[in-house]
């Protein structure tokens, strides 16, 4: 095969994904999303647009929600990644938010669901850390946790598209775990 890549275009990196360390040699062009899906066979993170325009690939990197389709894997050496497969931890029980999505029928086709779930987990942490959103009133003090009403949840979750239109049910599910 003529396909052996030229040196200098790959690097070795180590990531912890859902608590497990992985050392891989990655093509510098490879984004985290493709690393998860192609190299680790963790296909829960979805490719909806591949350009940061839909949120289906959202994962947690060192606790922050990010679009894994726009993160070059080589830049993430040493990072801690949590995907939808790891939200529930090691146990059999799903994460409370996963349970709430089931209870509320917060999805139909399911393709945006992993991204919605990871995004919601990240969002709850952001609000707890006092991060404001576009709809946070100017009178809200800077610093303490921001209370999440439905308007706040909707704005903060707007980076996750759902073409089946499960939005109201997703907001219901998130409210259930607040």
């Amino acid at each position, binding site marked *: 095969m003529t*396909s052996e890549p030229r040196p200098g275009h790959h690097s070795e990196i180590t990531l912890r994904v859902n608590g497990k360390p992985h050392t891989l040699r990655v093509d510098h062009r*490879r984004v985290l999303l*493709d690393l998860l899906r192609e190299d680790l066979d963790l296909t829960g993170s979805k*490719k909806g*647009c591949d350009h940061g325009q839909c949120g289906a690939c959202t994962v947690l990197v060192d606790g922050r929600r990010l679009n894994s389709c726009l993160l070059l894997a080589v830049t993430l050496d040493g990072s801690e990644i949590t995907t939808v497969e790891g939200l529930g931890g090691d146990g059999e029980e799903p994460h409370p938010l996963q349970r709430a999505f*089931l209870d509320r029928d917060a*999805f139909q*086709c399911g393709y945006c669901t*992993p991204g919605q779930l990871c995004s919601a987990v990240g969002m709850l942490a952001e609000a707890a850390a006092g991060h404001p959103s576009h709809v946070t009133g100017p009178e809200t003090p800077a610093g303490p946790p921001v209370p999440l009403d439905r308007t706040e949840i909707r704005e903060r979750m707007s980076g996750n598209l759902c073409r089946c239109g499960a939005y109201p049910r997703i907001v219901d599910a998130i409210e259930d775990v607040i």
Partner: protein
Amino acid sequence: MTGTTGTTGAALGAPAERREGRQKVTGAARYAAEYTLPGRAHAWPVPAAVARGRVTAVDTAAALALPGVLAVLTPEDAPRLADPEDATLAVLQGPGVPHRGWCVALAVAETPEAARAAARAVRVTYDTAPHDAAFTEHHRDGYAPQEAGGQPGRVEHGDPRAAFAGADVRVDVTYRVPPLHNHPMEPHASTAHWDGDRLTVYTSSQGGTTVRSTLAQLFRLPEEHVTVVAEHVGGGFGSKGTPRPDVVLAAMAARHTGRPVTLAYARRHLPTVVGHRAPTVQRLRLGAGHDGRLTALLHETTSPTSRVKEFVEYAAVVSRVMYAAPNLLSAHRVVPLDVPTPSWMRAPGEAPGMYALESALDELADVLGLDPVELRARNEPAEEPGSGKPFSSRHVVDCLREGARRFGWEDRDPRPGVRREGSWLLGTGVAAATYPVQAAPSTAGAQALPDGTFVVRINAADIGTGARTVLAQVAADALGVPLDRVRTEVGRSDLPPAPLAGGSSGTASWGWAVHEACAELASRLAAHTGPLPAEGIETRADTTGKADADSPWARHAFGAHFAEVAVDTVTGEIRARRLLGVYAAGRILNARTARSQFTGAMIMGLGMALTEGSTLDPAFGDFPEADLASYHVPVHADVPDVEAHWIDEDDPHLNPMGSKGIGEIGIVGTAAAVGNAVHHATGIRFRELPLTPDRILAGLLSES
């Protein structure tokens, strides 16, 4: 409603939880591109860079020299296919380029990155021909098609023009709907692999049975040599209703390279190759007496199609169903252009058609000074206007009245443009909804196992509707057993063949066959004595001749949509504050998943009203709004609380479950309800979608 899973005979109608839900929320559910077979390669298409012409040369040298590249298929050397029935599938079969974005080469490589780089390195030379991609309703190439959505292209009763000319009150308005894109969250994708002359594909499809027969025909294989798996499908909304080029190209690439190959379309490829809702220009002429009774209804629509095949966006068909007008014209025109081929998008025909018709009705109500609910009630037909058939059931006025009650419509001040809240103008609007009842023949198998459980097998597609779940409910009641004793297997072509999930017909078609197979199994079991044999007892049903039998009845679901909007006079931005739908759709088989389908479709209708639309660029012949940053699917922040309710209908003329389709009616009329609310808020009629700030602001400024 809890506890129903353990109760016999109470499964139908229960809000049973989705059976694949746990897989979907844990990331375990695999979609077509996620079958990571050993040695799998990736394909990336090269889209045509001209709107019309011929490929004169494809230089693959630079692409093949890149690391990891396995092959580049070209129109010269790609495997030859039998002539497809659907001309959009004749990919890489010749040098012709019928529109921009048409596949002119296919790169195959070890990784998606390498395939993408290779596709970009392919040099295609064209002999470019002049193209015409400028759609206008008066285009000289326009013609009246014979058929529109399986119905006659034109229906005319009485003397509509004369009746309109002589009417006491007239409304003559033209509405425009832009190109709309299905954009399911999962882009179209297929993974193909060959084992000798046996082909297996994992594909994102609303109907695997047709994928199988199509591939068998194209690759000249016996059908039993083709296996199609579509276990989880990330939405389709019509665009995966029939096979798209991805599955054909993946199979070609797999055959050519001898490797399993995945082709997952990039999002920006989709608009040109998977179909879209064609734009429509619809002229509505309504003539009525002072009492509001329609004397003339003329609904004429024009839409473009491609030169690859004719597709008619059958928007005028709804005027054959909705209102009693003794003089009726419902007619279609299409204009063939050098543009991508349009196709089905959720409620093709009905969605744009009811946008125009229900908006025009609102205009008539305005002219008459009549409440729009009342106007519709006054025009209830005794039988279906287009066919003269009696309705099997029709509760559109009940939906309107129930919706009005729930929405608080009776307190509404009909005057437009008088409700202010700071810089916002507020308004409410209503529109009716309709969608035909359809069903196609299906087969299904049912098996009783010695352990007391049951398996239902059918090659149905669960595209997010909850088919697995509702079919188990149908089976449980037909068998007279608790729901938790029934397992459903769907989404594989080695299961009994079944029609597609489309036209809101899936549950009716599949459920009918499942019901029959289970009813027969129940009677076999009743006659059986002693323990079951190890392999259990199996039955199979085929509804051919029943599901497709002519009916003396006009069968449709109906509904009503209510919307409240706020219009910002500073920016022209619109926010929906409330959406409420009430439906009469036969028996609702699963309250939980049905509600999600209704509200989900209403939200897509909200997108159609406010945010979605692309442009057929005459200069280039495609859609500049090709990604999800520029084509605005509604986001969380656009969507208010959305309510769906239904009226129980007992209609014996449908199918054994008594159900009508529910997947599409939620998008029908929603845009009209929103648009009518915008008129109520602003006093201005906006007759072109979507209602974006540029249009609204221009309207507000020209009024003031």
